[in-house]
């Protein structure tokens, strides 16, 4: 199965190009953050929102209404940070999975990681465990799911891209059945709503404490993945070739799988399962900066953050009631992915 994507050399000219692209994305992200702080049922001007945030950081009190401060600081800032974290986590983990499995068709949702993490979180809720355990259980669930997904092609001794995708569908199906069972047994008055919320993907009840609880995991995982991004290129050549180039393939795979699963699980913990971001954003980033993971991962990180922030802002402003995020990411992501496939077919031999 061959989706072949264009790449650029490591050149000073090329480096400058990549740097200016990344700078552009940072500016767009900043604008998106400001935009998302200001729009909503209670509009705030950009100057006001910047003043409120700056004064809160330095502990100065201003002359704006407490209501405005509460909207910006308590509601929108938390949600903005959460959307940025979740979007970048999903995009980076998707790009990493695609690289290490040499398969442009996989993503956290297609490999079953998201639904596995969702089940882990649901079990923790069902057992009424404290929030730290929800993250741990989500990680274990995601890891278990991706392990099963990887084992099935091994058992039938198939190395094809399609088999890994099919295996992901099998695991995804299994996970959704288990999820159904968990919901069936959950207490309809208290637990069911919480679990359903996880499954739909939403940031509407996000709290700053839960954002802060996943922040260290996300930052550390991303630093590790960025640091080893060049080795993801090497592993993407295939196990045999990577080994003759001196790569400790097992170690790279294990570390990369652990980090991207942590990223997915962390975002599932605060936002539930959000589809398409981990599949489409890496492809989009590859179109812009090329396939080298040293450039791809930072670009995917920024684009994922921008995308989910805009989607979440739309989700809370478009209708009278909030839309679940997966609805919007699907509406945007699915046609976009079809377009990408069409575009990349042009470059198949």
């Amino acid at each position, binding site marked *: 199965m061959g989706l072949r*994507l264009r790449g650029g050399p490591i050149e000073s000219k090329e480096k400058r190009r990549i740097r200016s692209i990344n700078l552009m994305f940072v500016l767009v992200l900043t604008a998106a953050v400001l935009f998302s702080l200001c729009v909503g049922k209670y509009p705030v001007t950009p100057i006001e929102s910047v003043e409120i945030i700056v004064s809160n950081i330095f502990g100065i009190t201003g002359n704006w209404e407490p209501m405005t401060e509460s909207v910006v600081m308590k509601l929108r800032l938390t949600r903005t940070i959460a959307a940025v974290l979740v979007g970048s986590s999903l995009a980076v983990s998707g790009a990493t999975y695609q690289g290490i499995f*040499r398969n442009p068709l996989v993503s956290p949702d297609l490999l079953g990681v998201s639904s596995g993490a969702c089940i882990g979180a649901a079990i923790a809720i069902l057992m009424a465990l404290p929030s730290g355990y929800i993250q741990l259980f989500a990680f274990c669930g995601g890891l278990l799911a991706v392990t099963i997904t990887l084992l099935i092609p091994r058992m039938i001794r198939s190395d094809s891209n399609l088999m890994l995708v099919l295996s992901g569908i099998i695991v995804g199906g299994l996970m959704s059945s288990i999820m159904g069972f968990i919901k069936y047994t959950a207490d309809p008055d208290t637990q069911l709503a919480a679990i359903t919320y996880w499954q739909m993907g939403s940031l509407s009840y996000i709290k700053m404490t839960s954002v802060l609880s996943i922040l260290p995991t996300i930052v550390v995982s991303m630093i590790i993945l960025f640091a080893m991004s060049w*080795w993801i*290129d090497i592993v*993407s050549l*295939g196990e045999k070739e990577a080994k003759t*180039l001196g790569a400790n393939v097992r170690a790279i795979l294990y570390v990369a799988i652990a980090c991207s699963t942590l990223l997915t699980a962390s975002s599932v913990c605060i936002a539930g399962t959000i589809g398409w971001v981990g599949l489409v954003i890496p492809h989009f980033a590859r179109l812009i900066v*090329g396939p*080298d993971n040293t450039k791809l991962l930072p670009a995917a990180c920024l684009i994922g953050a921008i995308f989910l922030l805009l989607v979440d802002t739309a989700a809370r402003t478009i209708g009278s009631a909030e839309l679940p995020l997966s609805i919007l990411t699907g509406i945007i992501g699915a046609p976009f992915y079809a377009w990408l496939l069409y575009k990349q077919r042009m470059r198949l*031999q």
Partner: protein
Amino acid sequence: MIYDVKNLCFKYTAGGRTILKDASVTLQEGEIMSILGPNGAGKSTLLNCMANLLKPDSGEIYLCGRKMREMGIKEVAGCVSYVQQTHTPTFAYTVLNFVIMGRAPKIGMFRKPKTPDVQAARDALEILGIAHLAEKPYTEISGGERQQVIIARAIVQEPKVILFDEPTAHLDYGNQFRILGMIKIMQDRGYSIIITTHNPDHALLLGGTAAIIDRNGQLDVGKSSEIITEERLKKLYNTELRLLPIPELSRMACLQPLLKNPIQDSF
């Protein structure tokens, strides 16, 4: 001595067919060796064992005087380049970036290539006369060009020995000899070389030593000009052929007589 392979035995599955039986072979510094044998005899198996990709059931491989199974992956890769048959990778890295990957044995797990690594890759492309390919996606160049690019990557690895797995497979007639010429140049530059090939004539052209594996996994090693004989080749490939001196080329050449019906032959 680069390689000292002692009494190598190999089976793919326990109780399965023995591919290599007590295979022993040595490779001196700067030497070129061709591994010959019929399909399935174990040419690639032997090469993969020497590349540290397969673990032999018994026997020992010494690489530059050290036991290979006690060496790390990076240590082996710093000494041995492996040029595999061409293939199409999933992602379209540029030729330059693909060649830079040959620097991997010198780069730490959480590090990236730096300017000297880029320069080494550019130099290797220059040496092989393919600098114009540098910015092209590796997936969009021809099979012959890809083989040359992989050789460039083997060079930047700065190995002592380069292993080629059927370097002429899937190449057109002209490209086959272009690659063989390139391999000969690599030897002149001081690299030790091992290739596997289906064509005894290639082994004769390259000279050096030949290792012949028969269907029973028996290995015979000697000077190419001495060990490659008409009788041996007939038995090895189970076909009619002639090994004749060609005065115009001042070399021995392995040639086929007129074709016979192979189906009749086997009855």
